[in-house]
């Protein structure tokens, strides 16, 4: 079983890496067929990735996120999944050249990190956990894309402000488009994040008998949530847009990444990977 799943993992990794290379070639050469090839490579990679996760889910009985290796691969998968949906909606070719490298980056780290073979504790074998993880990761992926759009916005805005047009000027879309993607990605990502946290706390109530116990991950998640809430508030009420909103969404996402990786690795608590497999 392990051998089969690892084959799917390697296939997914390879396809995603080749697709990334293709997307980079695309942004340099601007040839449409390069984009099309890269896009379909990514779709195939995503397919393999899904099969891999399906096998893992089947063999573990729970969403495969209990160690760093699995969590990163799952994150990478959700980013690609969300990207494919957004691509269908916005049809913005250049987005892939930013998303694919990020997804491939997480996937590559995932492939380099050793996985744990410890059996899954029965407490994790719950649909609630899968739901919690699923919603949180979709939210995270959307917020990752909002962060990428923000980076693209800042690059483009800088060129227009400074009146010096570099290679990116022609390749990036208009400021309005980038701001829109940033906005909508947060607007849809935030409810997922919220829902994920609520589901998590319900699950905690079932599993641990308590909704909220000031675990470091919980605290940091709350901080992230407040930051994003503030950003959305500013956008909707004060009318923030453009540069400020872009910077803020990058800050928010950095916090989110810290919560996702930093807290789990450094700070302990029942969310940490060490505690999930170990005991």
């Amino acid at each position, binding site marked *: 079983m392990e051998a089969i799943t690892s084959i799917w993992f390697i296939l997914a990794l390879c396809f995603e890496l080749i697709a990334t290379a293709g997307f980079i070639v695309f942004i340099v050469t601007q040839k449409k067929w390069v984009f099309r090839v890269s896009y379909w490579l990514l779709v195939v990679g995503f397919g393999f990735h899904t099969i891999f996760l399906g096998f893992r889910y089947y063999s573990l009985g729970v969403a495969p996120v209990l160690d760093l290796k699995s969590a990163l691969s799952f994150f990478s998968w959700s980013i690609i999944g969300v990207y494919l949906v957004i691509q269908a909606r916005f049809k913005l070719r250049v987005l892939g050249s930013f998303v694919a490298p990020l997804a491939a980056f997480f996937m590559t780290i995932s492939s380099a990190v050793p996985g744990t073979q410890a059996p899954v504790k029965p407490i994790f074998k719950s649909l609630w956990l899968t739901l919690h993880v699923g919603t949180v990761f979709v939210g995270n992926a959307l917020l990752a894309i909002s962060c990428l759009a923000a980076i693209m916005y800042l690059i483009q805005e800088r060129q227009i402000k400074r009146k010096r047009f570099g290679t990116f000027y022609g390749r990036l879309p208009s400021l309005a488009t980038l701001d829109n993607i940033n906005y909508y990605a947060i607007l849809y990502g935030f409810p997922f994040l919220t829902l994920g946290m609520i589901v998590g706390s319900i699950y905690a109530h079932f599993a641990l008998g308590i909704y909220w116990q000031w675990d470091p991950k919980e605290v940091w998640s709350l901080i992230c949530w407040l930051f994003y809430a503030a950003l959305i508030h500013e956008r909707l009420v004060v009318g923030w*847009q453009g540069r*400020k909103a872009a910077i803020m969404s990058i800050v928010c996402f950095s916090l989110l990444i810290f919560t996702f990786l930093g807290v789990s690795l450094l700070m302990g608590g029942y969310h940490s990977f060490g505690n999930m497999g170990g005991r």
Partner: protein
Amino acid sequence: MPKIINIGMNHETAPVALRECLAVESRNVQKALGLMRSLDVVREGFFLSTCNRVEALIVAQEAREAKRAVVSLLSKIGNIPVDDFSSCLYTYENMDAVTHIFSVASSLDSMVIGEPQILGQIKEAYLQSTREKMSGVILNRLMHKAFHVAKRVRSETDICGAAVSISYAAVELARKIFHALEGKKVLLIGAGEMAELAARHLLTNGVSSMTVVNRTFERAVEVAEHFRASPVSFDEIEDQLLKADIVVSSTAASECIITRAMVKKVLRKRRNRPLFLIDIAVPRDVQPEVNKLNNVYLYDIDDLKGVIEINKAQRQEAAVKAQRIVQEEVVKFEKWLKTLAVVPTIISLRNKAETIIQAEFGKSRSALDQLAPPQRQAIEVLIRSIVEKVLNDPILFLKGKAGRSTLNDYLDTTRKLFSLDEGDESSRTKTVTSNKPC
């Protein structure tokens, strides 16, 4: 072997006063083609006349005579003595002429490289040439290839990519900021040729409404009428800044009309909606510090010129690539042109065979008349297909030798083998100019 000759003048070689004499009237083209037809030396002709160039493209057997005839034709059209303009003319022959016309069609020879109008003008001129029955085998092929080259250049290079005029550059920038101009509002402050041009381009590119402000209200009303815009008085600028997305300013005022404080105040009320200010005035109308505000983009005339310079350089770069495409196509055309040398011999060969068939049929008429019509027809088909098969290999062989240095020897041998140069058939080489493709 017919020669392709191109005689003309363009914006670089001739002053505008001279070009005017020849170019202004579109009737001139018809007149020129009519005169060309009356010249015996000219077999095929094409005449192009735009505000930047006058070109005559002809196919002739005798190059020197034809050139002289065309130059005197130009002098007749423009009503100027030859000596007054002969120094402004350029003359290209054969492949140089082909290269030139391909470059012109691809807009590589234009004043603004990559401008799209020239191709349409050439198409129109070619249409007139066909209408006047002045285009034959060579010109037909040449012009169609020129259109093909222009299309390739446009799709394979960035030659008509970025804007090279102030007003287009402004529209392009607006697109990079707002994505679509539909539903956006323009505020035009002051008036001036360039500002109005920019405003017009914005309107044709989808901007939904426009407001005109001027120090004198009457002038505002006047300008507004032009654009179906609404005029407002000068004191309302701040109010209007609240509504506008794009501001085009070009007043004669000596100090700034729009200050940083003013925009900053408005910005909060606008809920940070982006604002694009185009300041065409000298001295400037908008304080340069305005550009430092978030979501506000200010471009003055020098900035726009800077953008254009970059774009022009880009087009120059693309032009190098385009020249390579032109060269490629010239080589292909040359190859085709060389196959033309074979055509007269092939035609005489076919004619000879046809004469023989007719003669032999005549001899056997009495015998054949006794057969039923279907049988007679069958015999005719049989004979023709035998002749066709026999001639097929020599013809293919000759076509294969087209463009080789030994071609003339082979043509000579063929003519001797089949004794093609005896009798009436040899004088029929003039049929080459018919429209039949080979």
